[in-house]
């Protein structure tokens, strides 16, 4: 009986029907060459399983656990937050609207990985809600600033802030959508940084990521030059025109960060 390599492989993997299996077993009887081929297939599988078994006992990062647990506690009314999808939709819009800017490509590229990172932190912050953290979810599931972050975004001018300000505002700018946006850095272990845009009555968190060594000697460093490259890229991609200078920032604050028609 002629037995193909693929049949031997399928037999070794337990993929054959009972009849096929019986046929192969009959052929293997007294055929050391076939027997060895089966042993090789199974030996390789055992080796692979062994080589990859240690990975299963590695600790899972908190951000992934949080994301998976969020899956359980998420509201089931269809308004589950998915920044990634929202971002993708926004990208699709902007792509359609304006395809010649070189920044477009950079912004789009953030969609996958960056959104994943942002989302991880966002989910984590969402869960702070009960603890009165700086970020929460509004009724539609969007991440919005609250507490001291909201106050700082609304009231704090970059000219006034000191190295000890608990929230540090980086730059203020108009987004391509016309909203006023401000980058911020929070103190704390994760030293999160991000961008919030004023929309309606809320500061919606557009991006959020872990800052790099936010605190140095107990003092918060000036935001801006230390912003993670990913955040800078997302600002570059979202910004319309130049960042606001101090005078323009003060005017925008006075007008309640309401985007003037243009």
């Amino acid at each position, binding site marked *: 009986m002629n037995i193909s390599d693929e049949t031997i492989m399928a037999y070794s993997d337990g993929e054959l029907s009972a009849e096929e299996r019986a046929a192969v077993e009959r052929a293997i009887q007294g055929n050391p060459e076939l027997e*060895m081929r089966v042993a090789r297939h199974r030996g390789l599988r055992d080796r692979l399983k062994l080589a990859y078994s240690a*990975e299963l006992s590695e600790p899972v990062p908190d951000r992934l656990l949080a994301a998976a647990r969020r899956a359980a506690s998420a509201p089931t009314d269809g308004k589950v937050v998915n920044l990634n999808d929202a971002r993708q939709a926004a990208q699709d819009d902007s792509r359609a609207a304006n395809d010649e800017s070189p920044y477009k490509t950079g912004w789009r590229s953030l969609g996958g990985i960056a959104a994943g990172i942002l989302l991880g932190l966002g989910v984590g912050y969402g869960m702070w809600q009960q603890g009165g953290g700086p970020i929460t979810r509004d009724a539609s599931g969007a991440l919005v600033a609250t507490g001291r972050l909201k106050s700082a975004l609304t009231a704090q001018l970059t000219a006034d802030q000191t190295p000890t300000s608990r929230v540090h505002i980086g730059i203020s700018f108009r987004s391509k959508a016309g909203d006023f946006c401000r980058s911020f850095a929070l103190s704390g272990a994760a030293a999160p940084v991000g961008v919030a845009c004023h929309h309606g009555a809320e500061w919606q968190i557009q991006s959020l990521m872990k800052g790099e060594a936010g605190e140095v000697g107990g003092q918060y460093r000036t935001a801006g030059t230390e912003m993670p490259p990913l955040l800078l890229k997302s600002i570059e991609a979202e910004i319309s025109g130049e960042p606001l200078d101090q005078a323009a920032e003060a005017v925008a604050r006075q007008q309640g960060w309401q985007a003037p028609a243009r």
Partner: protein
Amino acid sequence: MNTSGTSQNFHEELVALLPRLRRFARNLTRNPHDADDMVQIAIERAITRTDQRQPDARLDGWMFKIVRNAWIDEMRSRGRRNKIFAPEEAGERIGSEAIQQEVTLMSVQAAMLRLPEEQRMAVSLVLIEGLSYKEAAEILEVPIGTLTSRLARGRETLQVILGGEGEIK
């Protein structure tokens, strides 16, 4: 939305699946950081798409597929970006940590890294994750015949790399 999808049971299954999802994603992306990012994206996508899951579909296979699709999206996106940012991006992506990890990988894992992605995925799903040919073929969106030939070629290559047994016929 299908409420059963976000039940306590779903959550527990998902948490229990995380180690395997990470392992699969590492075999897919060949980079632990990318792998975790893809797992995270997949979880978020899964939450919003529980209604798209066939009631009898295994959670692992369904999630593997979402991880793989997330990676396909990411690679497309990088392809576009690389047209403009190639030089810096290349420098950023190849961190010393990643290289170090590759150097210290066990020989079997090192051999896996050398397989073409198609073969690596077939080997990963069937031999490491223990899925059936049919399930693996569905995840990779290929006919079973294609899956088995990729699996056979992947095995052959691994045997050759891992000990020269490939010559024995």
